[in-house]
């Protein structure tokens, strides 16, 4: 990490009351990201990565309880009053949600949804806002942007809708963009296009970006740093090249092994991670991954490992039986 952090998440925990008891969705996560940098948050479904992004944006469900601090640009978002928070959201802090089929309002035109954001945060008259909307749609690769303004979301394909959502997120030149599984709901052929678009716009605007995904392949070439989450906790974080070269956490290794390889022989079974993540309403005493970990030994079942510094700078992992350093997975 270079320079002061733009966003730093400090000891954030999210508790959700459920009929089966308290669910700890995010468990004391510390993360930070500097201006213009890219952070990937990786984990399987239910690991708390989306809850973490909602916690950063202060968009948690009403019943959820959030503890810890979310420092953004010197202010604690958790304790910020509503009006100041509203002025930050969409302006300095933007988000692209997972499913463009549900994140755009079905009864409002694309133009309305873009222009309202621009006019909320920037002093633009309606003509200027419209011109800027057309520019934005063109910038995210939407053909015939002028006509699109008049259209409704259902008249666009999924990929086009996600481009619209990205245009809305970029519209006020945010300092930080949170992309929450931006390609999960899209066709495989569209995924790379959307990721490239995000990367290009990020460089052009010098904004920081958090990419949340379940796919280590997505973060591989596109992030400066990666945090791997499991059962609500960060279990390994490292500069991206370091993570892939010297991963220490068995879960990261298993996650990487589960990606299909292009050079694998046909009909090779995927080394899927057996078992399921632990029930978050019944936390384990030991390491949350221990029931599924092939290296686990007695200590792993009794004690929870904390994040420890690895030999390489900026690399941390939470494991009692880490993989040998320097062994590529």
């Amino acid at each position, binding site marked *: 990490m270079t320079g002061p952090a733009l966003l730093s998440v400090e000891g954030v925990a999210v508790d959700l009351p459920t009929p089966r008891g308290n669910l700890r969705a995010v468990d004391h996560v510390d993360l930070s990201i500097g201006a213009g940098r890219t952070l990937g948050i990786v984990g399987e479904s239910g690991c708390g990565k989306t809850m973490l992004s*909602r916690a950063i*944006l202060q*968009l948690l469900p009403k019943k959820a309880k959030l503890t810890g601090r979310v420092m953004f640009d010197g202010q604690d978002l958790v304790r910020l009053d509503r009006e100041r928070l*509203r*002025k*930050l*959201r*969409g*302006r300095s802090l*933007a*988000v692209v*949600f997972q*499913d463009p089929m*549900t*994140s*755009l*309002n*079905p*009864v*409002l035109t694309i133009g309305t949804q873009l222009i*309202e*954001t621009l006019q*909320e*945060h920037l002093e633009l008259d309606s003509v200027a806002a419209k011109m800027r909307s057309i520019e934005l749609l063109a910038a995210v690769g939407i053909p015939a942007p002028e006509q699109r303004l008049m259209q*409704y979301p*259902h*008249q666009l394909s999924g990929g086009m809708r996600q481009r619209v*959502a990205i245009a*809305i997120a970029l519209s006020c030149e945010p300092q930080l963009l949170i992309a929450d599984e931006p390609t999960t709901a899209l066709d495989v052929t569209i995924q790379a296009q959307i990721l490239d678009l995000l990367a290009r716009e990020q460089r052009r605007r010098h904004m920081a970006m958090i990419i949340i995904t379940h796919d280590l392949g997505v973060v591989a070439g596109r992030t400066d740093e990666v945090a791997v989450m499991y059962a609500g906790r960060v279990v390994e974080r490292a500069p991206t090249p370091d993570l892939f070269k010297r991963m220490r956490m068995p879960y990261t290794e298993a996650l990487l092994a589960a990606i299909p390889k292009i050079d694998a022989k046909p009909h090779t079974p995927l080394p899927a991670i057996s078992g399921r993540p632990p029930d978050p309403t019944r936390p384990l005493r030991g390491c949350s991954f221990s029931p599924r970990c092939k290296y686990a030994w007695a200590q792993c079942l009794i004690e929870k490992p904390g994040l420890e510094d690895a030999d390489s700078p900026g690399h941390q992992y939470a494991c009692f039986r880490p993989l040998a350093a320097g062994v590529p997975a």
Partner: protein
Amino acid sequence: MLGFVAQRLLYLVPVLLAVSLLTFLIASLLPGDLAYTILGDQATPEKVAALRHDMGLDQPIWWRYLSWLGNVLQGDFGRSFRTGQTVLQAVAERLPVSLELMLLAQLGALTIGIPLAIACAVRSGSAFDRFMTGTAFSMLSVPAFLSAILLIYLFAVELRWLPATGYIPFHEDPLGNLRCFLLPALTLALGEWPVLMRVLRSDMIQTLQEDYIAMARAKGLKPSRILLVHALKPSSLTLVTVTGINIGRLIGGTVIVESIFALPGIGRLLLSAIFTRDLIILQGVVLIVALGYVLINFIVDLLYAILDPRIRHGHA
């Protein structure tokens, strides 16, 4: 959009035919012979037979239906054998009263129901929400005649602000006209806002959980804009349906409220037609009211398309 309207209009034809047939059947299948009703118990069989022949009552029923339908299509709904008034005249005289009452009642119900629904949906599960939902439920079970009497007691007898009963035509005294409609309209509105509030509240609670509402919040929009633009519009389909049904129902007037407040509306016209066995009036008025109902539902269909573009484009 034009194609959509034309298509919906085409759907109306069979509906209207069915409505006319049912109306006709109901009136003709009522027990008692129209000729006897007109001539009285003392009439000789010859006179009755002659009248039946004149009125075409000796024809087969399908023939009577077709000739009645033919007349209706030419705008002739028949004439009361008691007052000599045509059905159209009678309706034209009474309809404005029922329409004004209906309009004011709906405005009242929507003005009470919509803000409360939004307020409850935003704080769903809170004490306020539970209190309002409970109030709505108890209001729902208060019959119109009871709330009418209570309103009359409060506003007419105790406070003396408004007249208890009576009707002043609009062209004679617009303000007086409005004053005599306030209590009956409020009576109807009190019975209707709970339904409107409950349907809008539950739709709104669902909408507020949608991703696009989270997105609207993430965009930093003002809460008022999120509620009124992003959430209200997609939540209002059921509200529009229920309002449409209420309007359709009230076109036919309300027997109870019009009787209590002595308003000369369609409801009282129907009631007196029933009491006096004025079948021509009854049949004609029921048909016209049914036409109004069908028309309102047609407008509701169009409103759906305006509210939700996916219906307009045939996607939903």
